[in-house]
Structure formats: C-alpha cells, structure tokens
C-alpha cells in the first residue's frame, strides 16, 4: 500500500464529510439479507460469496461504520466496522473494480432499495483518491484527457478515415454531394462517436451518415471533440470526469448546435446526458439525446423510410445497462427493430431486467480481469443461444466488443450489429 496517510484521510473524508443525503442513506440501509446475490452475474456464474452485492456494499459501509458512527468508533466488533488498511484496500480494488460492472441490476431487486452501484461508485471514488485505480483503466482516462479521445487517435488519422468513409457514402447513395460534415456551425445536430468507431468499426459511422443523408438532416461531426465516452465515470474521479465532460459541452457551445446526439454507447450516454450536468454543476442550454431516440424519431416522423424485408435474419436485442436500466431508453430500440427487421425476438429476461454482457463498469479496459469477464459472460451467452437469433443488435460499442468476444469464445455463430447498421441496411432511399 502506498504509505500516504493524507490520501487515506482524503478517502475517509468522502464518507465522513459527505453532504450527500443519498450516500448517507444507502450506507445505513443494508440489512445483510443476502437476497441480492442472485441478481449479480458474478455470483450467479461463480457462486463465490465474496461477489454478493451486499458484501461489496459492506466493504464501504464497514469503513463508514468505523469512522463515522458512534457504534463503529467505540464497539467496532458489533457492526463489523473495519480500519482502512492494506487488506481492505486490496479487497476493495478486487471487488469494486474487478467484480462489478455497475450494471445496477442488484439495485432494482434489493429488498430494501439500496442503490448498490452508487455505493460501489463511492468506494471507487475512495480508491481513486488513494491512487488505487487499476492502471489499465486509468490509462484510458489519461489518453482521453491528454489527446482528446480515449484511443489517442490523431486528428489527421480521424479526418483521413472520415474522408474515405465519405467517398464510400457517395458511392452507396449515388450522390456526389453526399457528405460527412466536419466542424460546421449552427447545425441541428452535433453527432458524437465512440473512438472505437473510427478505429475499429468505421461501418457504424457510414451507417449513421447514410441515415442522416436519408433524413436530410443538418448535422456535423467535430474533429476536435467527438469522443462520447468518459471513462472517468468508471474511476469515479469527478475532477477528471469534469474535464472530459466540459470539452464536449464547450464544443457544443462553440459549434452552436441545437442538439447533442450521443452515439451508441451506454456509459457515454449516461456520462454526458445524466452525469455531466452534475459534474459541471449546471443545466445544459441544449438538448442531449441518444442516437437511439433520434432513430426512433426519424422512423415515427417518416423522415426515413425502411423496408424490413431487407433485414430477413432473426435479430435479438441486447439491452445495454447504462442506456436501459440507468437511462430510461427502453421502448425506442424495440420500436426501431420492429420497423427495421422482419423477425425480432426478445431475450429472456430483457429490458430493465436484462443481464449485463459483462463488459460494463470499465471491465473491457481492465485486462487483468479478462478471465473473470469472460466467465460472467456465460449468462449472456446462454440468453443469446436460447433465442436462436442470427444477429444480436445492441446500441452500445462496449457491448459490441464484449459480444464479439463472447461470440468468438463460445462459438455462437452470430453477427453483432449496432442499431444504426440495422437501420441503414433497411433504408429505402427516395
């Protein structure tokens, strides 16, 4: 452990000087009934008791008890109050970073109503204060802060990619004037991207560009700030999260776009739409929506025409936790798929009861937990297998990555697609 009492003191202050009604409430609410166990994919796949969500809460509440309550200060044995030491820090890193995808499934099923993932994030914040964020996850945050996007893509490389995507778009829609606009002011939409798109999945950018073209949308991308992700949300370092969020906020103001449309990225959507205003402590003077809502809007308003016969294969949907359970986008993706595909079937369970794919909470960045991440994916694998679908659609690039790995490891033989790709495949250009 880093020998730094001031860091420990700062971590304890997160609990002892908390002015957060919600945190104080949830730290005092768990009754250790253990009924949350079966809601957690880590416990379900390993049956290891240390992964029970209540045990994760207990790591933080035991510190709260020790340093912030009469009983814990004077009779620590009674409530299991613990000192902040090397042993508990190791447990916290392993269980709060390495064994929680922040999927929030346990919150909904907690018999009391403890927001378990909120408490886990408070624990991650304490670890962040003490410098115990796994280096692999922190490096993703550092890349975003230092280069403007979490994959450190140079601007030239980004614009080159967009340039050939624009050529492809012109060929596909047979219009030499079709374009992917860059840094245009006063548009209706500033569209963001997950940096995985220009780096690994450029076809999802093409798909969205084709949709914008079909909808005759006035939109733009920014070359200086397009990254929808904010991995500092996962490290719970609010100062770093604020830096990243402020860049996109400022870009919106600079380009004077009316709406910020967040690419298909679960945590990115959550981080900018729901968390960023709180990081920055101000309400945004522009609208922030997800591309899922935008696609549903285009279809319902007749701005794009779809022929669902163009998507003949059976499609199932994986609900990204941050978008659905933590973001309230529940119906739109179903509406889109029913209009864009011939045969859409649900997994069981689905919607707000869905199981995480295993890639959330920063797990995809933390390679030290890869084995565990693929173990917890067994549940999603079985869900997909039972549907018999040929395509798994998901509006989240993190989930896309994890689902591709699931497909490879468990030989599912499915294709993984974003919603934009499925909609673009069904578009009828007039």
């Amino acid at each position: 452990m880093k020998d730094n009492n001031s860091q420990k003191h700062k971590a304890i202050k997160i609990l002892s000087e908390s002015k957060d009604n919600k945190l104080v409430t949830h730290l005092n609410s768990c009754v250790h009934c253990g009924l949350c166990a079966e809601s957690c994919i880590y416990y379900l796949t390993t049956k290891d008791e240390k992964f029970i969500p209540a045990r994760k809460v207990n790591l933080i509440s035991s510190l709260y008890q020790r340093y912030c309550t009469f009983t814990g200060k004077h009779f620590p044995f009674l409530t299991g109050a613990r000192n902040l030491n090397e042993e508990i820090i190791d447990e916290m890193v392993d269980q709060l970073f390495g064994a929680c995808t922040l999927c929030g499934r346990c919150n909904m099923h907690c018999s009391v109503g403890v927001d378990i993932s909120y408490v886990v994030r408070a624990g991650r914040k304490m670890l962040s204060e003490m410098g115990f964020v796994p280096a692999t996850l922190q490096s993703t945050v550092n890349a975003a802060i230092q280069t403007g996007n979490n994959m450190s893509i140079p601007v030239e490389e980004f614009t080159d990619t967009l340039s050939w995507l624009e050529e492809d778009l012109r060929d596909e829609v047979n219009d030499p004037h079709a374009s992917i606009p860059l840094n245009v002011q006063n548009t209706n939409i500033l569209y963001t991207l997950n940096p995985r798109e220009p780096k690994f999945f450029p076809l999802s950018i093409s798909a969205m560009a084709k949709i914008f073209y079909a909808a005759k949308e006035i939109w733009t991308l920014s070359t200086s700030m397009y990254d929808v992700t904010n991995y500092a949300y996962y490290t719970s370092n609010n100062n770093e999260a604020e830096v990243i969020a402020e860049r996109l906020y400022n870009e919106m103001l600079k380009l004077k776009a009316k709406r910020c449309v967040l690419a298909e990225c679960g945590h990115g959507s959550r981080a900018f739409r729901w968390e960023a205003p709180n990081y920055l402590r101000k309400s945004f003077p522009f609208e922030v929506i997800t591309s899922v809502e935008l696609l549903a809007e285009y279809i319902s308003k007749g701005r794009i025409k779809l022929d669902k016969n163009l998507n003949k294969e059976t499609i199932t949907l994986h609900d990204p936790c941050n978008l659905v359970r933590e973001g309230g986008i529940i119906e739109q993706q179903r509406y889109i798929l029913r209009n864009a595909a011939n045969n859409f079937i649900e997994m069981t369970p689905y919607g707000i009861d869905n199981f995480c794919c295993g890639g959330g909470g920063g797990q995809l960045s933390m390679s030290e937990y890869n084995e565990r991440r693929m173990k917890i994916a067994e549940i999603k694998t079985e869900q997909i297998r039972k549907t018999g679908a040929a395509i798994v659609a998901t509006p989240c690039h993190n989930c896309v990555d994890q689902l591709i790995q699931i497909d490879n490891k468990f030989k599912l033989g499915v294709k993984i697609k974003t919603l934009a790709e499925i909609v673009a495949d069904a578009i009828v250009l007039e």
Partner: protein
Amino acid sequence: MTYYQLISLIAFLICFLSLSYHFFRLVRLGLPKDYSRKTGNLKSAVTYSFTGAMNPLKKESAYLHLPTYTAGILYHTGTFISIVLFFLFFFDIKLSYALRLILICVMIVSGISGIGIFIKRTMTKKLRLLSNPDDYISNLIVTVFQIFTLIVLFQESFIPYYFICAALLFLYLPLGKLKHSLYFFAARYHLGFYYGWRRVWPVKSNKQIK
C-alpha cells in the same frame, strides 16, 4: 407509573431522540439535486418505489426466495404490531378477547418467522459470511420482544419483564442495523427519485412496450 414502565419510557425517548437525530440529519442534507434534464415523473416513480416496485412478482429477491420473503413480511408485520401493542400496554388499554386471539395467532406466526430467519442466518454459509454480531443481536432482540409480547397477551403478570425487554430493544435500536426502520423509507425515496428522473420507473408492463 411503575418503575418498569418508567424505564421503558426513558428508553423509548432515547430511541426516539436518536432516530430524530438521523432523520433531521437527512433533512438538513436536503433533497437530491440533479442538474440533468428530467424526462420522467418523480411523484409517480416515488409512489411506484413504495408500491409496485415492492410487488413480490417484480423483485427477484422476493420471487426467487418466497419462503424467506414471506417470513420477512410476517416478521416485520409482527414487529409493527408489537410496537403498537407496547403503547396499548403502556397506557393499559384493554383488548377484547377476540382481538387478543387474533393477535396471539399473528404473533405466533411472526415469532416463528423471526426464529426461522435467525436459523437461516446461522446455518447458511452465504449469510454467515455476510453477518456481523449486530445482525444476530438485532434479529434476536426483536424476536424475543415479539415472544414477550405474545406471552403478555396470554399472561399479564409477565408485564414487568416485557417492559424491561422493550427498554433493551429501544436502547439497542439506534446502534445497529435496526436503524433501517428509518433509513428504509429514505432509501426507497432515493431509488424512486433516481429512476423517476430518468423515466425508468414506474415500469410499464411488457405488453406496453411497443
């Protein structure tokens, strides 16, 4: 007022003041503040948090563990009735024979539930690893209080011991997890606020998802 009533009254006041401290601390910390743009309905979501979201058919913690969940509900019902009866006994309010019989039945079931929950915590590895002394003491002290309530419903001469037991419960309540008698409501409120702000709650039925 007898000495044992006085002891239980003092214990109750200490308990009440301690819980009031917790309550007013939460009030002082204020309601949640969220700068993001609300898309849902807070009132209906908070209501849902206390009603529909507690529906055992919608909670895995309930429908996957029906015996434990049922025992928990009965146990908490018994606890609530015991607290009400404490005041009736304290003010020497007489109960009808029929009501006594009903309460005796309820308290027997509730007491058995409490003992069952205690045994489960003791015997299940998953729960033992999760438990600390407070979990056992809280369970025991409430169960004993319920059993003493039951005995008093049979045998009024037991009342001095009953009030001493009540005093112990009241003194212990603010120290450990029994505080959830207050924090439970705050937790449900916060959960309702959180999901309501984002239009996750109230949940639409699957048939409503088009």
